[in-house]
């Protein structure tokens, strides 16, 4: 426990988290600080390449076992189930209507890559071993949640879904989404080129990685801060409570799965982090197309303004402790 606390503190005082806080504070103080759009998009691609490639190299080094398949299956199932729990939680506890509850639920079934990146840093700092294929699990967890949420929404209100759009087309669009393609592609390239490939591009994707992450989190802080300023009026205390506790629910659902798969301590921590994290890029865009009546200000503010900061600061040390407990 003491270890968890000191880890939490170390995490809070690490440069990435402090830069996130700086961005958040700047936005709340109405500073015009912002990373230009095109650069922010490129930083996101960079993070995908770096984490995907390194994951692939790990797999090339240590090979892979049935664990990979189990983890992929476990991740997909979690992504599909978590939205049901989230939906039930919201309908029982908050005042959200069916459509908005379904839209929010989709976000929590899906995942946040930046949260995974930050967790990977923490896990490495702690020297916890982890499976490189977790990034492949992340890719698999992006989309099932959306299908569950659409099903929940149409059960709640048959007219909820925007007409004329087949689920298949939407799924295809999300899975061909640039970030997923880069993540999976870099994973495969890392796998194919292995250590030798890594040596060639390490000065680009390894050495400056933490610094780039700081810059990206500075921007995420700005985005979260502005989102909070815009969206705060739509969130009552019940929704805030949901945004702070739903990650724990996801983590609790993922922990036994991680145990059953037999993941390493670090791998379990990352797997749990994926379940606990919420999407803020792919799922919101899908919701705009498929459930246009759901309010983006609600789901985006929850995911970006409440859950993301929670995970980055307090969640990750917790999931790391959890991973060590169940797999240690």
């Amino acid at each position, binding site marked *: 426990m003491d270890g968890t606390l000191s880890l939490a503190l170390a995490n809070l005082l690490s440069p990435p988290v402090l830069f996130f806080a700086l961005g958040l504070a700047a936005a709340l103080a109405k500073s015009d600080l912002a990373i230009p759009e095109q650069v922010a998009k490129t930083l*996101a691609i960079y993070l995908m390449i770096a984490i995907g490639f390194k994951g692939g190299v790990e797999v090339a080094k240590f090979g892979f076992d049935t664990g990979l398949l189990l983890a992929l299956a476990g991740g997909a199932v979690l992504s599909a189930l978590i939205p049901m729990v989230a939906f039930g939680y919201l309908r029982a506890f908050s005042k959200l209507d069916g459509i908005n509850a379904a839209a929010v639920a989709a976000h929590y079934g899906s995942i946040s890559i930046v949260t995974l990146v930050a967790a990977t840093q923490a896990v490495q700092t702690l020297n916890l071993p982890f499976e490189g294929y977790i990034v492949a699990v992340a890719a698999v967890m992006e989309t099932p949640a959306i299908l569950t949420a659409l099903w929940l929404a149409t059960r709640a209100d048959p007219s909820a879904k925007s007409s*004329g759009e087949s689920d298949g087309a939407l799924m295809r669009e999300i899975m061909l989404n640039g970030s997923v393609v880069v993540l999976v592609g870099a994973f495969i390239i890392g796998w194919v080129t292995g250590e030798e490939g890594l040596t060639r591009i390490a000065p680009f994707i390894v050495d400056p990685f933490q610094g780039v992450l700081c810059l990206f989190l500075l921007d995420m802080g700005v*985005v979260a801060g502005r989102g909070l300023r815009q969206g705060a009026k739509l969130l009552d205390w019940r929704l805030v409570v949901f945004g702070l506790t739903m990650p724990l629910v996801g983590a609790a659902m993922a922990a036994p799965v991680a145990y059953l798969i037999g993941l390493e301590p670090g791998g379990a921590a990352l797997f749990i982090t994926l379940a606990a994290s919420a999407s803020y890029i*792919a799922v919101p*865009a*899908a919701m705009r197309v498929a459930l246009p009546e759901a309010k983006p200000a609600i789901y985006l503010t929850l995911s970006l303004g409440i859950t993301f900061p929670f995970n980055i600061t307090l969640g990750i040390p917790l999931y790391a402790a959890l991973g060590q407990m169940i797999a240690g």
Partner: protein
Amino acid sequence: METYTKKRIEIIVELPMLRRVLDAIDKAGASGYTVVPVLSGRGTSGEWRGDAMIGDTGHMAQVIVVTSEHRIESMLEGIYALVKRQVGIVTVSDVEVIRPEHFS
């Protein structure tokens, strides 16, 4: 220099819907369109700034279509069907063009 009267439709639409709007424009028989970036905006669904967002949700673009009067009706219907439940606005105005064969 002789000019010919056409209509200019300008659509401000959210990025996640852009591809679908462009497809509707194609289907309505326009010979072309132009997409212009948008930096920020305000409307009934609040204020936004592109450089303070991540992802396409809530981020608008502007589509310009120059087309013949007789296509307007069906085009507006196609677009309206798409955007009626979304954020976004549509305006139509008169313009003169110099190369009429360029527009259908």
